[in-house]
Structures are given as C-alpha cells and as structure tokens.
C-alpha cells in the first residue's frame, strides 16, 4: 500500500528525490575526487622525473648495488615508479675521453621520462645511448659502431710491452636530448660497464621516482637512512616542494567547490521539501480529522523524508562514482578507485540533510488546524 501510494505520487516524489540525488551525487563524486587527487596527481607528477636521490653516505659504509636494492625493497613496488643506478667512468672513444654512465636502461627511462631519444633505447649488450653533445663532438649518428676503451693505471704491459686495455664494440642505438647536462654523457648498460671496468657492485648515485606526498617521502628517506647507513637519501626539493604546493591548492579548490555545491543542494532540498509538505496541508488536516496525532503526522512525513534521503543517497553514491570516474578519465586519463566508506557517509549525509530540510516544514504542517483546512476553499 505504501509502495503503491509512493508510485502514484511519483512525479512529486521524483522532484524531491532528484534534488537529493543531485546533492548526493555531487557530494560523493567530489569527495571521491578529493580523496583520489593526490594519487592521481602523484602519477602525473612522476612525469617530471626523479624526486629522490641515493648518494653514498661516505666513510666506510657500503654503497653498492646490493645495499641499494635492499633500500629499494623497503620502498616497495607499489610506490616505486622507477629507479636508475648510475656509475660514471671515463672511456676512450676515437682517442677522446668521454664521460660514460653505466645504468639500468629501463630504470632510466622511468626516472627520466622527459629524455627525448632519437632512435631507440639500448636493450642489449654492445649498444649505447649517446647524449646530443657527445654525438656532435664525435659526429655520431644512429647505427654507427665505435670502439670503447677503458684505460686505467692498473693496466699493465704484456710481454711485448703493449698495454692491453679492455675494449668493446658499441653500436649507437639512439641519440638523447634533454636540454641539460645529461647530454654530455654516453650511456651503456651496467653489465657492459662491469665487463669493461670490473668492480662489480660499484655505484656513484641512484635516481628514484617514488609516488607519494612530501611528508611520506621524508619519512621514507629517514627510514632508509636508518636501515642503510651507507645510503644518504635526498629529496629533490624543487620537485617535491612544488608538487606539495600544487596539491594543496588543488585540494583546497575541490573542497571549496564541494562545500558551495553542498550548500546549494541543501537549499534546493529544503525548498522542495517545503513545497511538498505545503502542498499536502489539506491532506495533513484530513489525517488529523481522521484521528492522527500531531506526532503521528510528523513521524509519517519525517519517515518518508528519511526513506527519500536514504534512497537518494544510495543512488547518489553510484552516480557520484560514475561522475568522478568520468572526470578522472577526462582530466587524468586514469580510472578511480571506488571508496566503499563513501556509501555510509553519503547515505548518512543525505538523510541528515533531508531530515534538516524537512524538519521545519513538517513541524509547521503538524500544527495545521484541521477545522480550518477542511473548511475548504
């Protein structure tokens, strides 16, 4: 009977429900975005490259591929976008001393996403990536093969008096432009570096791209420093600080929009509820004439308001998620995670708003003088 009577009043009910649904949608949608913005922006920010660097702490504490990979394990795959270890040696190419970096190409690709590579990244032994300056200096182009020689004081002359230095044929697979000092290097794989220079495990610096807010990163680097005394983690201040500023501003903006929309919705729900209740004054009078008490009338109307609020809240959660998803796809081209705790929050909020919005109209309606209303107009 109640369901049927709600069905027959659907046009009126729908108006009220619509107002609540719109409010709940906007609320849950914006809260979802608000919560997800740091994660989304974090991924976005990682396009600007490394935000953490591992330097050797100095002293006799070990700073090796071993200790670094232990530190990386502490960060975890979740947060670690990429890590690139670097070892620098001077090599001879065409009799010229060239600064050469041994690294992990896949890691470098992630920590330096802004490098523009003409050709392709090396992915095999015997391949190298040349910085633009070096390529110009040596007149290298993609596909050229050069001999890379490593000369050190330890090199000893053999029986015939010839100094045998380790060397390797290297093919240029790509030429890299970054607009910075990185262009003055040649990049080879860490394995080739070890093959040429020995001293497996030696490292000079490690660049990392870690997702997370500044405070979390600070905590993380403190933990690493404590666990690995040989490693001195440093945050790239310029990057992390500006990330934090942008994030704070963005969240403040979303929060502001959320509150404004919420207030507007509240007004909208309140006026709709007032209209619904006012429209039913005559019915209220009749119900009172039939023996309904003031309390009974108020309870009935409030109950209906609560049901509407809960239903609107539930619909709003779903629509809000779709809304947030659409926004996220548009702005960040990434999907959003559904926040389960938003369901009780949104339902509670819309029941509360509907309750508050209905309270005064219902209260005045329950005071309706049956005799006056029923006299008819």
């Amino acid at each position, binding site marked *: 009977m109640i369901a049927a009577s709600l069905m027959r009043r659907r046009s009126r009910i729908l108006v009220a429900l619509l107002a609540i649904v719109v409010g709940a949608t906007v609320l849950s949608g914006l809260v979802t975005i608000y919560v997800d913005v740091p994660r989304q922006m974090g991924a976005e920010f990682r396009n600007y490259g490394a935000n953490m660097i591992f330097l050797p702490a100095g002293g006799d504490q070990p700073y090796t591929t071993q200790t670094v990979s232990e530190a990386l394990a502490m960060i975890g795959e979740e947060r670690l976008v990429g890590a690139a270890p670097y070892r620098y040696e001077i090599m001879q190419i065409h009799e010229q001393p060239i600064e050469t970096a041994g690294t992990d190409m896949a890691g470098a690709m992630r920590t330096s996403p802004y490098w523009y590579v003409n050709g392709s990244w090396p992915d095999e032994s015997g391949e190298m990536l040349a910085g633009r300056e070096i390529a110009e200096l040596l007149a290298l182009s993609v596909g050229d093969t050069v001999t890379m020689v490593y000369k050190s004081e330890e090199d000893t002359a053999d029986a015939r008096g010839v100094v045998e230095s380790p060397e390797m044929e290297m093919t240029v697979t790509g030429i890299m432009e970054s607009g910075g000092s990185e262009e003055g290097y040649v990049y080879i794989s860490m394995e080739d570096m070890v093959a040429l220079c020995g001293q497996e495990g030696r490292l000079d610096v490690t660049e990392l791209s870690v997702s997370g807010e500044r405070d979390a990163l600070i905590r993380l680097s403190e933990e690493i420093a404590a666990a690995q005394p040989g490693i001195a983690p440093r945050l790239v201040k310029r990057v992390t600080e500006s990330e934090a500023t942008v994030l704070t501003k963005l969240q403040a903006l979303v929060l502001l929009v959320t509150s404004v929309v919420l207030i507007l919705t509240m007004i909208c729900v309140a006026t709709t509820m007032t209209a619904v209740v006012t429209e039913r004054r005559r*019915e209220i009078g*009749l*119900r009172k004439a*039939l023996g309904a*008490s*003031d309390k009974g009338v108020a309870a009935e109307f409030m109950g209906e308001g609560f049901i509407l609020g809960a239903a609107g809240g539930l619909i709003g959660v779903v629509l809000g998620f779709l809304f947030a998803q659409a926004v996220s796809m548009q702005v960040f081209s990434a999907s959003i995670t559904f926040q389960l705790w938003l369901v009780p929050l949104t339902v509670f909020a819309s029941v509360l708003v509907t309750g508050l919005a209905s309270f005064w109209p219902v209260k005045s309606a329950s005071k309706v003088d049956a005799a006056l209303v029923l006299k008819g107009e």
Partner: protein
Amino acid sequence: MSLLELKNVSKIYGTLRALDHVNMRVEAGEWVSIMGPSGSGKSTMMNIIGCLDKASEGEVLLDGTLICAETADRLTEIRRDKIGLIFQQFHLIQYLTAVENVMVAQYYHSMPDEKEALEALARVGLKDRAHHLPSQMSGGEQQRVCVARALINYPKILLADEPTGNLDEANERIVVELFKKLHEEGTTLIIVTHDPEVAEVAQRTVVLRDGRLVKETVNENFTGVMKHRKVE
C-alpha cells in the same frame, strides 16, 4: 443521559459570536438535521461537536465526557473513537484508491484491515470501484467512499457537513438512503444541509440564525425516505 448535550455554548471570533448561547440535546440513535443561512454558525457548531474546535463558552457533553475541558490530544482520541466525519468537499487523499482511503481511517483508529474496508465499500455500493483513485470516480461515488470511511470504525455519532452540497439529485438520494440504513443500525446522525428535502427526512430539524438556535421542528411522520421531487 443524552449522547450529546450543548449547554449555553458560544464561539467567539474577535467581536463576532459565530455561536451564541446554543442549547441542544441529541439522544443516542437520533437523526437530526441542522439548517440555516450561510454564516449562521452551522459548521462552527459541527466542528465543536466533532472535537475539531473548542467552544469559547459553555459546556459540551459527548457520551458523558465534558469535551470542552479536554486537551487537544485527548480531543483527537475522542474524535478517532467516537466520531465519523463527512464533508462537503469529499476530502479524499488523491493518490490513494477508494479502499486505501477507507483503510487510512482504520490505520489511525486501530489496524488497517482490507477485507473489512472492502465490505464497507460494498455497503455503499462501490464494491467494483474499490481500487479506483478519487480522480477516476464521480462526485457521488467519492462521497460514498467518504461515507464508508466515516462508518468503518463504527462511530457513535456521524457528523456530516453538507454531505450532498456537491451532488446531483440521484446521488443525493443514494447518500440519504445510506443515512437511513445507518440510522436503522442505530447510528446517531447529525446532518447539516441547505436542502429542505434532505433536512425533512430527519426526525428533527434545528435551525440556526446568526449563531442562535431559532427554530426546532419534529418530523411527526418520520420514515427516513426522501420524497420524490415535483418535476418542474
């Protein structure tokens, strides 16, 4: 003791005496008509008897209870338990069907009981209209739903304020016949009407003017049946 007794009842609106020292008794099972020009205080009196309003002065005794001394909540209870109301403007809930409208009265009184509600509709000849909305019924049918609703809780006293005011002659006749049935079953009826032909069916007619009870006639040859109108 009479079922209803008004002693020196007045209702004052500002300077206006809508009811002016009215004295009246109604015995249990009696059928009384109230007549009078517009503004003479008929509805005011009905509202006071129906516990929708309170008298400014005087005493109203209903079934042994001095209702002018009761609180609003108690008045609601008395109305629910003892009084059936019928209005000129049907006053049905528009989004409820006939049977649901009857069940609303049951709901506030005790428990909704669809079977009983359908029986009440059958009594007023609306068995096959039970699941229609008010908008799908004629005025006469709507007023019969109101009669069914008013009698569903077996009220001691049925108050009808111009129940046939919005009806054509045929429907007027049907409603008056329903009143006769109720009267035969022992229900006390107080009917306000402008229509002398409806009024004269009752056992007694009371006339109000300017809030005063000015005339009272007893129908000597009471039958409870409406006379046929002269064809003009």
